[in-house]
């Protein structure tokens, strides 16, 4: 049996088995769940080789599955994050209702993502895309909060995107007579100009929704924050990358083949830039960690879209690197929020404070991920940002540099807010009972945090596969070529010449650590956070001195003009308007038999009158 089939059968069977076992025994269910995630991952990495394909036919269409170099990059994200978040989920979701449903849905969406990466034809691509959509939708509404608002919004946007994609797919089919992605790519330059324009736009609407591109992003904040955090880690970390995956294929394989593609890419890049700025500003304004991370995800995806839109080899390298990094650090952050939610019951910055000494490992993981997110060296986020800036400057996108830089600087605000809001600040007696999350939740976070550190120091580990993937898309090998632009990347990759920097950092750190702290360590004593110099006042136990409300009020006041215009009310208004129209249409059915009879007669008369036009006689 083909290994590719086996992987999907395991996924599918595991999903069903997990659901059914969920009705019987919790432990068995958990074990099956983890096994269903881990076994295909192992099979995938050991048994499936790149370029291996299987062909079959379904409903008269020839389908083909097989992984490419390019898909392999995303498979790292999907399976890595899927397994780690799965381990996390087992501990995080313990004691919730309906877990069999949750787990089988989780497996289904991992399967769908893998399916997307495996699909070499548009039909199975679309099928897996839709499975991914509805399984993630079921996760969004899993908690039962704001279902009709948030859930439906997500699904409408996903459906519009998917249907746009479907339209492109059937149009392609009618034009080429084949459903293969390759044949679309080959035939694309020969299309009419209108089709050359229409097909990428339709596809990009589909991918843009999933990757939360600016005018299509309004679902993101609600959905990311309403899904269980164990899933949101995958949702934001991996699932949104499917949009990027498709977008890169469209941009690189289709649009770039025609001379007008240049403008197309510009638009995409600018949309990405606007997404980044808007996402960041809204993230700064949030008081809820889930919402903050959700908007932050939108912003981060914005950077990636900028890279994709610019489309030079370095930019593409940056985008893919950032996609991997985003999976790592945003997954960790969502997991951390989930851990905090599990331990304290809330995710609001105005309520939880001072967890650093209670949940040190969660803090450590969050800290490393935040540093990566903010793009501060030496963690991985910087490498991506750096390559993005270099590529933007190198390809003459000067204003875009400023836009991206603004967003990236403003990102420090919410990064700090996240760390401060949960971990720093006053340690309140209200949260004195809080303990570190269970090991099964902490370990995946720590692993991923260390992962983002390792990728920051040894970016070659992931840059090499990315390079291979890009070559498969038709880029020339970038190995070493761009890395020489700065000493940072001089001979980076396998060998590390960052040693001087690292040594310096470590040496200075140790020096000052000893100098400042250890020398008089005995005389440095710990005092509680209630013992602060607040004008000689002694804060009583119930007095919360933490500063958490209106955290960035002055900044938000300054950027108010930028945030005044939202697109969400526009959509809502459109929806309301449509409902009003539908309500008007509904009145055609009066419920009166006489009216219906009248309709019939009028219909007959109309047919008689317009018989020439209708029937051509």
């Amino acid at each position, binding site marked *: 049996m083909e290994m590719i089939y086996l992987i999907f059968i395991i996924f599918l069977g595991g999903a069903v088995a997990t659901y059914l076992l969920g009705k019987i025994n919790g432990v068995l269910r958990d074990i099956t769940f983890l096994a269903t995630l881990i076994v295909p991952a192992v099979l995938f990495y050991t048994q499936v080789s790149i370029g291996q394909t299987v062909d079959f036919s379904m409903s008269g269409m020839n389908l083909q599955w097989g992984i490419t170099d390019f898909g392999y990059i995303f498979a790292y994200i999907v399976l890595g994050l899927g397994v780690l978040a799965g381990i996390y989920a087992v501990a995080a979701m313990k004691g919730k209702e309906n877990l069999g449903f949750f787990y089988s849905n989780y497996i289904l969406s991992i399967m769908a993502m893998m399916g997307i990466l495996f699909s070499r034809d548009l039909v199975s691509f679309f099928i897996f895309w839709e499975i991914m959509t509805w399984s993630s939708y079921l996760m969004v509404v899993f908690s039962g909060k704001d279902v009709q608002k948030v859930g439906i919004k997500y699904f409408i946007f996903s459906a519009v995107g998917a249907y746009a994609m479907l339209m492109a797919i059937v149009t392609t089919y009618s034009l080429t007579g084949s459903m293969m992605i390759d044949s679309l790519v080959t035939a694309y330059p020969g299309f009419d100009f209108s089709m050359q324009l229409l097909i990428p736009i339709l596809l990009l609407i589909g991918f843009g929704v999933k990757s939360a591109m600016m005018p299509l992003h309004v679902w993101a904040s609600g959905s990311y924050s309403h899904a269980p955090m164990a899933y949101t880690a995958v949702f934001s970390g991996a699932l949104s990358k499917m949009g990027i995956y498709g977008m890169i294929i469209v941009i690189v394989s289709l649009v770039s083949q025609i001379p007008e593609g240049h403008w197309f890419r510009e638009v995409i890049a600018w949309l990405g830039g606007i997404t980044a700025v808007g996402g960041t500003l809204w993230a700064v304004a949030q008081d809820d960690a889930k919402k903050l991370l959700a908007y932050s995800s939108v912003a981060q995806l914005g950077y990636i879209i900028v890279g994709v839109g610019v489309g030079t080899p370095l930019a593409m390298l940056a985008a893919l690197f950032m996609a991997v990094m985003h999976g790592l650090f945003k997954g960790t952050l969502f997991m951390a929020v989930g851990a905090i939610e599990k331990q304290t019951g809330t995710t609001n910055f105005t309520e939880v404070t001072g967890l650093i000494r209670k949940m040190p490992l969660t803090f450590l993981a969050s800290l490393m991920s935040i540093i990566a997110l903010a793009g501060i060296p030496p963690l991985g986020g910087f490498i991506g940002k750096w390559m993005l800036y270099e590529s933007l400057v190198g390809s003459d996108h000067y204003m875009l540099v400023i836009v991206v830089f603004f967003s990236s600087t403003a990102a420090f605000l919410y990064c700090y807010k996240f760390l401060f809001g949960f971990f720093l600040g006053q340690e309140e007696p209200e949260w004195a009972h809080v303990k570190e999350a269970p090991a099964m939740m902490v370990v995946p976070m720590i692993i991923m945090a260390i992962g983002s550190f390792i990728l920051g120091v040894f970016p070659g580990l992931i840059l090499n596969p990315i390079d291979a993937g890009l070559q498969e898309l038709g880029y020339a090998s970038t190995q070493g070529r761009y890395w020489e632009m700065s000493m940072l990347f001089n001979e980076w990759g396998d060998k590390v010449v960052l040693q001087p920097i690292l040594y310096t950092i470590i040496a200075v*750190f140790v020096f*000052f650590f000893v100098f400042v702290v250890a020398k008089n360590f005995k005389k440095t004593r710990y005092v509680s956070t209630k013992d602060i110099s607040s004008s000689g006042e002694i804060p009583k136990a119930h007095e919360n001195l933490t500063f958490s409300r209106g955290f960035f009020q002055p900044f938000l006041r300054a950027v108010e003009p930028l945030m005044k215009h939202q697109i969400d009310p526009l959509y809502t208004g459109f929806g309301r308007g449509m409902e009003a129209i539908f309500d008007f249409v509904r009145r055609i059915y009066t419920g009166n038999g006489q009216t219906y009879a009248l309709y019939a007669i009028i219909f007959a008369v109309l047919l008689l009158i317009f018989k020439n036009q209708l029937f051509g006689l």
Partner: protein
Amino acid sequence: MELLTHILGAIATVILAFVVGMSYGGIVRKITARVHNRIGPPWYQNFIDAFKLYGKTTAIHHGWMQIMGPAFLMVSSVVTLMFIPVLTNGGWFPNLNFEGDLIFLLYLMVFGPLGMALGAGQTGNPNSAIGVTRGLSQMVGFEIPWVMALVALMIQFDTTSITGLMEAQAQSGTWNMFSSPFAFIAAVLAMLGMFRYSPFDIVGAPTELASGPVSENGGKYLFTMMSSGSIFAFVKLTLYVDIFMGGADNLVILLLKTFSIYMIPVLYGIVSPRYRTEQAIRFFWGWPLFFGVLALIYASIF
């Protein structure tokens, strides 16, 4: 042997930066006093203060992050210093100067303040957090014109390396402050915020916020912050000199150039009251931004 020279050179650079930064601080205090019609402390007062702070025999901490905060700041300052070409030919201080990349530097410079902000947050003092939020907000304000100026230079000379910019100036023979004046103006206006003198000193307003982020730090912490702040000031000044004033061939010229450019924020600050945060941000997004855009246009036309 080469390694030893490197290490010695690095240590020498740090000491130089420390001494110069501290002395500049003292001189600024003196100048401020003279403007106030006072006598003012001696120019070495900062050294005394630092030494006294270091000599404090007790210290407290509210958690490990508070201890790490100043250390982060110090690391960031020293590492950033390592990447700055102090002298044009690098003769005396051959650190990592010749590989420096502006974008890398920009992010490296944020590392310390963010670590410091975490340390300040750990103390649990609300004033610290308020100060940090103000500082970060203000940073978003001035980074925009500053980056615009840098990008304009990058466009003009088609390089993102500091040494590249210095070489370009050496070849053309004119300093960038003349060859791309708008970028210089934008950068200088951004510098006002970067040095956090009045009117942009809302971050640590002593009477309003009880010195803001550092309000829980005394003794050694404050010493570390003070010294790394001095090193950082030197780093920023040298960076300005390098990219706008063609760098310096020897120490005397370096001191002259850095001091002259240092006087801009100092003198502007002495006679200014204090902006609120959003006023500061709006200030930076007014004329500095305008000059930044001009610089970009200028750079992309020529």
